[in-house]
């Protein structure tokens, strides 16, 4: 240790003269290669980047501009935008937070660090990072996202649900819903990219309501939700959540549980308060126009809701005893408690929509009457008939259609099921009926012998993976890649379903032409075979022959313009009967049709 009182020496410094004979430590003039993990100029894998602009949000230097690059793919449904970040090096501070937050991991920093320019070339400070680097030479990747540095929470909050053994013999709702902590944690994962909004058929403001949930303001969240969806309770439970497919967090992790967050927000606000909130948007005065809606399903009621909101008088005709359409008659109660559906409908009727249940168009009232009584008529009759496989024996009385069976369960509360049931089909309806039957079997027989056969391989099932998993948990046997050949009937009794293994479903042109392995034959014993291979509508009776003739049809579906208007100026059509089955599409359709009708009616008002 040095001593303060040491006077030092005049000669000791002379030892440093030895450096006259030692080599210099100077580095060569050319720039060295930077270390691994150096934070140099940006790189961006354009093929991986989805243009979510999270990098822009984390950068408070305002260094990142999102630029639209037309040549890149843009696919809202998949959550891909053709936006790419451009970096202003007159702002950037090379903190690499943009890299660490990037949901896709496409951004990184390179080992390149030399850039000089004159005043005239100052534009070079603004550049669009690509895969190679700022000057076209790849110096290697420097700072990249690692597991530690990743700022995003990629894992979804586990949704609590009742275990299989508790749920298999009743129709109580399966999922528990988020606790406030879970909802908070889940909401905090959102980077507010808005991919969900773009992908949602009805354009729900998911980023906004997620944000409101995160801020603890559930009422505000409800406001945002009702901005675009009157079937909020329904969609919070059974939506097909296209939003989650597009979620940019889902690129590397599990997407946000946007549907469950909506459910959380809706459940968190009292029914009465929701009605008060929704009344905020009711038009102050009536327009005096009247609109009839045929069918009280999501599409019809959404149309009605929108129009009522804008001051039109709306009457909804529903042939069944209760409103709700498919959500009520097609979705089993363990997924969607009817109480929730009732709440949504109450909210809609509170807006001034009149629903006349049990009034079947074509019977109690005709289309002509509607045409004369109302300024506009909306057809939202849905798809309530099951398609049949038309295999031998499928005309047997115990070969049933899934939609009819589900409807029966709803109407009657329960039905009798045989000990062994086979379901044909791999979609959500097939799962719904299989699980419904499984519950009934458990109630009636004490055990489950339900088999689901489908053409598709398991990974290609149209049903939600969660549905398949839950079905399996509940004792349903899944037999993928089985092509139904015959419902074996012996002595008038349905014995079994005979199936062949599937080699391929589509031919080389991509047409539906299943190819079977005839050696792989199985017989699934069945007291009942349920077909769940698709739905169709039957509007002939409803519309009447004349109208049916005048309208345009394509493969059984009504042809409409992009606003939902048919070739008849007073008639619009919306929902499954136009688009095929999907609740959130139906809602979107309802909005579109309502907007179109409103415009036409207002235009008429103006002209008059």
């Amino acid at each position, binding site marked *: 240790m040095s001593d303060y009182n040491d006077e030092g020496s005049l000669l000791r410094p002379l030892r440093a003269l030895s450096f006259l004979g030692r080599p*210099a430590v100077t580095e060569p003039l050319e720039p060295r290669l930077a270390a691994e993990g150096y934070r140099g100029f940006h790189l961006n894998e354009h093929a991986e980047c989805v243009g979510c602009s999270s990098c822009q949000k984390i950068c408070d230097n305002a260094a990142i501009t999102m630029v639209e690059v037309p040549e890149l793919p843009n696919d809202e449904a998949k959550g891909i935008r053709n936006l790419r970040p451009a970096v202003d090096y007159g702002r950037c501070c090379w903190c690499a937070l943009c890299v660490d937050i990037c949901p896709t991991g496409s951004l990184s920093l390179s080992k390149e660090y030399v850039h000089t320019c004159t005043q005239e070339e*100052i534009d070079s400070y603004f550049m669009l990072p690509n895969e190679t680097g700022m000057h076209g030479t790849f110096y290697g990747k420097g700072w990249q996202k690692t597991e530690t540095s990743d700022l995003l929470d990629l894992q979804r909050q586990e949704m609590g649900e009742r275990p299989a053994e508790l749920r298999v013999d009743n129709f109580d709702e399966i999922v528990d819903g988020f606790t406030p902590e879970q909802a908070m944690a889940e909401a905090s994962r959102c980077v507010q990219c808005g991919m969900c909004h773009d992908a949602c058929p009805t354009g729900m403001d998911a980023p906004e309501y997620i944000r409101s949930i995160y801020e603890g303001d559930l009422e505000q969240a409800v406001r945002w939700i009702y901005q675009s969806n009157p079937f909020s309770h329904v969609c919070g439970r059974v939506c097909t959540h296209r939003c989650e497919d597009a979620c940019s967090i889902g690129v590397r992790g599990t997407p946000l549980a946007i549907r469950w967050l909506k459910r959380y927000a809706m459940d968190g606000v009292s029914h009465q308060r929701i009605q008060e909130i929704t009344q905020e948007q009711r038009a102050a005065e009536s327009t005096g126009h009247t609109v009839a809606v045929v069918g009280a399903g999501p599409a019809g009621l959404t149309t009605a809701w929108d129009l009522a909101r804008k001051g039109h008088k709306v009457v909804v005709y529903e042939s069944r005893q209760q409103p709700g359409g498919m959500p009520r008659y097609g979705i089993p109660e363990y997924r969607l408690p009817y109480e929730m559906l009732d709440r949504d409908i109450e909210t809609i009727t509170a807006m001034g929509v009149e629903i006349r249940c049990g009034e079947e168009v074509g019977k109690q009232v005709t289309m002509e009457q509607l045409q004369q009584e109302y300024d506009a008529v909306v057809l939202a009759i849905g798809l309530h008939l099951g398609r049949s496989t038309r295999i031998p024996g499928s005309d047997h009385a115990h070969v049933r259609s899934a939609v009819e069976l589900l409807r029966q369960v709803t109407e009657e509360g329960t039905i009798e099921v045989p000990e062994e049931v086979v379901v044909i089909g791999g979609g959500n309806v097939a799962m719904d009926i299989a699980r419904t039957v499984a519950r009934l079997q458990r109630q009636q027989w004490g055990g489950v012998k339900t088999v689901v056969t489908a053409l598709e391989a398991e990974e290609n099932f149209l049903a939600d993976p969660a549905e398949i998993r839950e079905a399996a948990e509940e004792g349903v046997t899944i037999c993928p890649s089985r092509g139904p050949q015959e419902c074996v009937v012996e002595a008038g009794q349905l014995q079994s379903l005979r199936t062949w293994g599937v080699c391929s479903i589509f031919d080389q042109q991509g047409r539906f032409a299943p190819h079977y392995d005839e050696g792989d034959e199985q017989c699934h014993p069945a007291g009942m075979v349920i077909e769940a291979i698709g739905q169709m509508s039957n509007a002939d009776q409803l519309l009447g022959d004349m109208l049916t003739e005048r309208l345009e049809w394509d493969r059984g579906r009504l042809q409409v313009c992009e606003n939902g208007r048919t070739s008849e100026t007073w008639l619009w059509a919306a929902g499954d009967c136009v688009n095929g089955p999907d609740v959130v599409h139906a809602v979107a359709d309802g909005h579109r049709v309502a907007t179109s009708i409103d415009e036409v009616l207002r235009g008429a008002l103006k002209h008059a």
Partner: protein
Amino acid sequence: MSRVFDELTNFARARSLFILHYCTGCGAIELPPVMTSRFDMERLGVSPMVTPRQADILLVTGYVSIKTLKRVMLTYEQMGSPKYVIGICSCTVNGGMYWQSYATAKRLDEYMPVDLYIAGCMPRPEAVISGLRELMKKIEQGEANSWKEYYRNYDYYLGNQQHLFGDQWQTPVDVIGEAEHYGLVGDGTRGEHTALLEQVQHPLKPLEMRL
């Protein structure tokens, strides 16, 4: 003959550059490595100088607070021509990470002409060396003439300075006089801002330039 002489001076100018040792911002921390043994800029004939009179290069190392910018302007005007300005770091280009700060000036080129920018926050010594070499190349080719721009567009620069420092702003250097001396009076030398300067100009009292 005069061309040969010009070329000789440019050749020498490019190889002998005195940097003004003025640490205006955080980029200054990478200058000691540039100066010292590891990167040794004396290899290029670049050495630090302590006063503006002696220096050729004004190295603006990053953000300049408005307070500093005044001094930088004084310094710049006192440097002998030909003089070169290098703006290093992000902040000299577009405000850098302090772009929302009330205290810093955002774009150096609004206040003085800049010959070269070196990107980085802050640029590594190697980048600074590369920048210096780039500048040397430009000087040798006779392309680094930004100092002439200051005389030709004095009104623009003065206007921006007045905008930031107030209408009373003046420096001890008579820039227009110098412009006339060099024959560099251009369309932008005089204008409304120089007119304003003439109005407010008053003899400087002792040490008033301390500010």
